[in-house]
């Protein structure tokens, strides 16, 4: 039959020890005879394991290949003028040509002849030289450029009638600016 576990005594170590079968005390010498050497052996094992780890670490340090020294790249001294030229070139290379060409192609009708495109990457502006048959076509072209979202500012810089040309075309220059990509 199983034990009836009703006990009003406060729980504690003494109560737990008291509940252990009393005859267990006769096994205490045998338990100690096993446990005490086991404790010492465990301690010795841990010490030896630590020694082995130290030895392995020392060996690893000794046998490791010498560290590869990466030679630092020599510093190239550049003059301020060269630096600004390089930066200008980089800016030029980073020019959004594809978007610029697409926006310009959309805005330029057949009545306008583009003569030159002069981008300024640092100022984010583009100077357009073009010819139109008359001033109406020119103004319509400027209005179409202003309607393009890609351009932030469109300014008509100058215009003149080419007298020496028999068709007397209107040559003009427009400066457009674009925003940050």
């Amino acid at each position, binding site marked *: *039959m*199983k*034990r*009836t*576990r*009703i*006990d*009003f*005594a*406060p729980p504690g170590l*003494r*109560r737990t020890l*008291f509940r252990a079968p*009393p*005859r267990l*005390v006769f096994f205490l010498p045998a338990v100690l005879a096993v446990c005490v050497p086991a404790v010492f052996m465990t301690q010795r094992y841990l010490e030896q394991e630590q020694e082995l780890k130290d030895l392995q670490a020392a060996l690893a340090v000794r046998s490791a290949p010498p560290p590869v020294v990466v030679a630092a790249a020599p510093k190239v001294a550049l003059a301020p003028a060269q630096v600004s030229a390089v930066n200008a070139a980089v800016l030029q290379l980073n020019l959004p040509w594809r978007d610029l060409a697409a926006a310009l192609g959309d805005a330029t009708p057949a009545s306008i002849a583009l003569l030159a495109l002069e981008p300024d990457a640092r100022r984010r502006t583009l100077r357009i030289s073009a010819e139109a048959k008359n001033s109406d076509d020119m103004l319509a072209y400027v209005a179409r450029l202003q309607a393009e979202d890609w351009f932030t500012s469109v300014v008509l810089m100058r215009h003149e009638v080419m007298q020496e040309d028999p068709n007397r075309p209107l040559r003009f220059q427009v400066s457009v600016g674009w925003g940050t990509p």
Partner: protein
Amino acid sequence: MLRRTIRRFGQTLRLGIASDGLALVRVNRLFGGAPVLLAEQRLDLFAPDALGLGLRALFADHAPAGWTVSVVLADELIRLWQVTPPPGATRMGDLEGAATLRFQHLFGAAPAEWVIRADWDAARPFLASAAPLNLLDGLLLAADAHRFHLVELRPQFVASLNRWRGARRPGAWFGQVHGGVLSLAAYDGAALAAVRSSPIPAGADRDWLEAHVAREALRVGVGRPERLQLCGAAPAAWGSSPGRLKFACSLFEENAGDGWSDLARLARTGAAT
């Protein structure tokens, strides 16, 4: 200090507490031997500060400082009942709630003034017990004051159940005779069905026992047992083999009435004799 420890090796004190007195017994758990009655103190436990004064008088010649002490509470001081776990009980709180409700239903007392302990079992009916809170507090204070280690505090019937659990047979009812009261643990197969106590009338013989057991079986609603196993100072005439009798009755303690008083026998309940 070392000599005292060696002298006490394996020994423990057992303190019996009844409504009419206290008794102190020394037993050796390790090497066996007969328990030694150290002191007895008659008192009225329900008088103010009776426990503290009684323990002081009891320990006057046997200071318990440093000893481990097992306390046996007389069954008249505590409440014992059987609890059926609620169906689908999954938490300890379910069992505690069921035990408390059953306690209130059976005894009508406020649970706040009692401490309930039980042999918790979520699958089968289990035995629960309640002891008065002020009695337990008094014992803890006495343990502090007299510097002994309170390691066991059990009702007498529980101590008897555990003492004889190795000798008990499955399905047999278990009984305890003490102070003219017969306490019975009725089993239905292996499951505890009820715990009931009844006074034993003067001159109660085997016929009375058989009638009483038959009555209790009817009250509890279980079959009559094939065997009844009794501990305590049961009359020798109750012991018998089945023969023409309705059930076998075996007595665990043939010499229970060996000159020890009820108080002393209470204190030694649960100890190997």
